[in-house]
């Protein structure tokens, strides 16, 4: 067992199997050197330019897939950005090529966020995977889905016959719950700042339905992405999947949540090799931190999982 948390197929009641990370984690070392090899670029998806960064492998490793990282939604793309960059660098340094990209309406890509819908995010993920295989000259794809990006990766995975493995960082399981959680956290933060919230979660949901958007920490949450993803379900998206899977829970609690534990059990019942772990940390999903959130144990765990693929 690693010092930071790695347990194979734990029951939901397990605690000791998950050695826990401290709340703050040092950054992985040698980030500067890794950046020397990286190439920023634009590629086409659905007729619009998307931004991406290709991380070539630092050493030859025949048979390794290329890792495609699917970021989170809206502000979460920003909040977890550096952690994803450092993950890509560590994985590439171990001989596995990586492709990061900004989906439409995100970061430096084209499109505005108000027009983003779930099908479009999946379309971009598939285009990114094709670009990744072309750049890396690899036949197989491994996916990393971060938060809402977990739902995206899980939908892209069965649509792409080259898919070989999937890793999920604190994935959203069902969008309606995810969005309500986002609204709830905004209200909590208002209270913590000494402000009295002017609405309940239900009222914010009503406002979203009525006005088409609601302000969440200086970001609009738009009805279009909420409506278009309403029926998504992580477990259902992975219903035919039985390949290698990593699920990392990033929460300040000792046990896997019931949905994650249930997903692990479902996957294992189909013969999937599942690795689950817990990183006890509270990144603050909706805030950019100073400095940006980094998590070395998360990177090490992801690298360990990918390392076993080839």
């Amino acid at each position, binding site marked *: 067992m690693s010092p930071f948390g790695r347990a194979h197929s734990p029951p939901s009641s397990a605690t000791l199997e998950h050695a826990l990370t401290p709340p703050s984690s040092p*950054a992985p070392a040698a*980030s*500067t*050197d*890794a*950046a*020397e090899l*990286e190439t*920023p*670029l*634009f590629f086409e998806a659905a007729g*619009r*330019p998307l*931004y991406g*960064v290709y991380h070539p492998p630092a050493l030859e490793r025949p048979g390794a897939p290329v890792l495609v990282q699917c970021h989170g939604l809206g*502000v979460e793309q*920003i909040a977890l*950005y*550096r952690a994803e*960059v450092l993950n890509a660098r560590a994985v590439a340094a171990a001989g596995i090529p990586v492709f990061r990209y900004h989906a439409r309406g*995100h*970061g*430096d*890509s*084209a*499109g*505005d*966020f*108000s*027009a983003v819908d779930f099908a479009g995010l999946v379309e971009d993920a598939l285009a990114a995977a094709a670009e990744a295989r072309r750049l890396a000259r690899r036949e197989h794809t491994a996916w990393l889905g971060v938060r809402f990006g977990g739902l995206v990766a899980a939908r892209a995975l069965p649509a792409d016959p080259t898919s070989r493995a999937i890793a999920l960082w604190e994935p959203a399981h069902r969008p309606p719950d995810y969005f309500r959680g986002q609204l709830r956290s905004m209200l909590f933060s208002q*209270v*913590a*700042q*000494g*402000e*009295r919230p002017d609405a309940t979660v239900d009222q914010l949901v009503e406002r979203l339905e009525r006005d088409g*958007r609601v*302000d969440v*920490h*200086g*970001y*609009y949450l*738009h009805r279009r992405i909420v409506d278009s993803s309403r029926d998504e379900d992580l477990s259902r998206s992975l219903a035919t999947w039985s390949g290698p899977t990593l699920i990392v829970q990033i929460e300040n609690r000792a046990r896997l949540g019931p949905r994650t534990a249930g997903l692990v059990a479902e996957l294992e019942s189909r013969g999937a090799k599942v690795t689950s772990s817990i990183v006890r940390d509270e990144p603050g999903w909706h805030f*950019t931190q*100073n*400095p*940006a959130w*980094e998590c070395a144990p998360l990177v090490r765990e992801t690298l360990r999982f990918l390392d076993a693929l080839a």
Partner: protein
Amino acid sequence: MPWRETPAELERARAERAFVVNAPTGRLFAVLTPPAPEAPPAELCVVLLTRPRSHRNRMWVEGARRLAAQGFTTIRVDYHGCGDSGGDSAQLDPNRPYRDDVVAVIRHAREQFGARRFVVSGACFDARTALSAFAQEGGSIVGLVFMAAPVMELDTVVRVHADSKDWAHLWRALFKPDNWRALGQPGRWKHMAAVLGRVTGKSVGAASELPLSAGFVDDFRALVRSGARALFLYGHEDAEYASFRVAERTVFATLPADVRARFDVEVWPGSVHGFLEMTRQRETFSRAVSWIEALHPGAQVAATAPDRARLSAAS
């Protein structure tokens, strides 16, 4: 209203180029948005600063494409240790701006893209970094957007902000239940202690004695020497504004009239600093971009301040 990408902005997105700057601090990842070929050229390269480079709600992406559609060249860049860039991350302190990064970007743009005149823009740490470029590149910078940045060491800013409170403020605050709940945060205790210290007579001192950051003063002098125009934008409720008021009473007050005339100082009701409330975020963004637009040699409208009555009551 949220940003709706226009056809002209999509065209600018199609023209964008990602590039890398080899700065002393690390490999900096950046995006160039070239000016629209059909637009009258501004002959200005706007460097939009923040981390990550897209800014909250992708404001700088929108700004870059909007300005490029009107003939500006724009660059947005990740500082070292941030976003895509190399180098190690560190806690950002406005009084230790990343001058090496912004200067490296300006020099790269000059050598690789032929840019000759620049505008630099940012808020808080990014504003101080933009200002810091004048020490080495003042001769090539013609405009500065400087939003809601502290101009003292951070501990002094906290104390000066507390200095703006009085017994009446404290009395009113005692009757707000939310304030008591907020005392769960250590930072709030620190602020309360500072307010109490001020109200009970332990002020940090008279205005003339208050220490502006030495780095700010040096960089401000470089701005004055440069001949550039500048927009200083704050909110009345910004803690950073309390520090800026000292600058207004000191370094601004002693400027010759012709130099002072180059600087627009706008203080809006409410807060500018946080960018956490959409209406004010859009107002601030719009003001910064329109001020830059007015630097275009073909601009029809001068850079006038917005009608205060039309501003939101952001707090």
